[in-house]
């Protein structure tokens, strides 16, 4: 579900803005580190979960407004270089501010320990993350499908010229989409922190996964992102049980296999 969330955010940014966002993983990592810092200052996990992703969204807002906005006319190569440069900067800033060593972070007291489901014993926090991620995916879906601005955003993915001809401020749309995508990445990072702990490399690892989700699910395709996220999440869990070392490589192997059979991705748009 977390993978779906990451893929969804990236899918929005890539689909609406038509840029390759190599900083998406860094935004994810920043979300996790923001959470740790906010919890450290305020001492409350829930406040942290609320504030940290908003912080990432604001960061996304600034990035779009100050940098990416100037690059829509430039080719993908320069957009890539820009977001790649940003990823390097954010990644190194994490090391400078929070240190190169991994940090572990405990879930809030309420969600510690496990829950007996009858057939198996499952950590409470993981259940919470699944519910949270599911809720966010549904909320994003409702926003995109049922609200006016969501409809505009979907239209922006389909045909940008037409949308701006209809008198809609396309630049504001881009900014909102980027901030929303950054928010989703940030909250995915914040939710991950108590499960896997934090390390400066977490962003890059997640970036690759997010790209796989988008490549399989299709740009701006919500259902595709969820299906692809679940597929690789399950594949990874299954392989991890038997052969731990291969659990990351398998994500990309699954992608390669799917693309061999269906080069156009799981749902075959564009």
């Amino acid at each position: 579900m977390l993978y779906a969330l990451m893929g969804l955010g990236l899918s929005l940014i890539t689909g609406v803005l038509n840029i390759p966002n190599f900083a998406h993983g860094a935004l994810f990592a920043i979300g996790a580190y923001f959470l740790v810092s906010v919890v450290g200052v305020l001492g409350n996990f829930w406040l942290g979960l609320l504030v940290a992703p908003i912080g990432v969204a604001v960061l996304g807002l600034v990035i779009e407004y100050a940098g990416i906005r100037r690059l829509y006319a430039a080719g993908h190569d320069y957009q890539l270089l820009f977001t790649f440069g940003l990823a390097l900067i954010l990644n190194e800033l994490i090391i400078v501010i929070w240190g190169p060593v991994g940090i572990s972070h405990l879930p809030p007291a309420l969600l510690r320990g496990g829950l007996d489901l009858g057939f198996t014993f499952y950590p409470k926090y993981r259940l919470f993350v699944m519910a949270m991620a599911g809720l966010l995916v549904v909320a994003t879906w409702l926003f995109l499908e049922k609200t006016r601005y969501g409809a505009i955003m979907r239209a922006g993915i389909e045909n940008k010229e037409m949308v701006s001809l209809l008198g809609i401020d396309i630049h504001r749309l881009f900014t909102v989409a980027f901030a929303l995508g950054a928010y989703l990445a940030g909250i995915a990072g914040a939710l991950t922190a108590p499960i896997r702990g934090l390390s400066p490399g977490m962003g890059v690892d997640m970036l690759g996964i997010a790209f796989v989700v988008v490549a399989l699910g299709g740009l701006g395709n919500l259902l595709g992102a969820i299906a692809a996220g679940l597929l690789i999440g399950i594949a990874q869990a299954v392989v991890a049980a038997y052969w731990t070392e291969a659990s990351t490589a398998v994500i990309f192997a699954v992608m390669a296999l799917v693309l061999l059979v269906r080069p156009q991705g799981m749902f075959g748009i564009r």
Partner: protein
Amino acid sequence: MRAAVLILASICVLPLIVRPAIASEIWIFAIFGLGLNLLLGYTGLLSFGQSTFFGSAAYVAGYLLKYYGIGVFAALGVGVGIGAVSALLVGYLCVQRSGLYFIMLTFALNQLFYFIAYQWTSVTGGEDGMPGIPRPALFGVDLRDPLHYYVLVSAIFLLSLWLMKRIVESPLGRILQAIRENEVRAEAVGYHAPRFKLLAFVLGGAFSGAAGVLYAMLFGIVPLESIGFVFSGNVVFATLIGGSGSLYGPIIGSFVFIWLSESMSVMWARWPLLLGVAFVIVVLFFRGGVVEAWSRVWRYSKRTA
């Protein structure tokens, strides 16, 4: 002709200015850039996974050099082969998609190879890299002397440049450029675009492979970073800053990039941060590459004078 003289002159002068190791690194990186430029500049394919081929070749050839004691030319041959084969595998999946999907696929497959190298510690050494790559003697010449090795690297660079010039000026090169300019039209006159893109991938991969082997022998180690995505990004940066689409662009870019990273890495341990800032500044203000930046500075100095 002028370009040839200039390159020969810089090959001769360079080791007098900087350490031979850095001079070698510049030409190796230039070979790497030449390979990418065939894709990026001539075919219009933005590959963000070139280190896949560079690193795979470096690991395989490094392994054979270390444990089986093969010669320099055999190692280079293996590297070129591995570079081409890995590019064939990756390219086959990637050329079926275009635009943003293509970029993301090259990156994702790069990550696949990275994680294999990262986890397969018994062979690759994982995070520590694969140390102890020897530099065998060639025709009785001891290549362990940095200057001797520099001569070999320069010779292979010149060979690569000559080959690349032949490739881009051949009918094949023209077809690739036609695909870059207008893929639909190239298809319409009868060229199956994916097949030519794949061919460009394989050729580019072969150049990357040669560069990877030279790199491994230069430093005596195959670091894990050599197959990582930052390496892929660096070569894209070098090619763009030198000016893609021109044969000599990657060479200029390699000079600028190695100079930048060498001078930054002595300044601060967190130098990738500075590198990132350099990327952002270049993209925002000097999008035309070095050539345009130079003419802008020149115009500015004329105005103020």
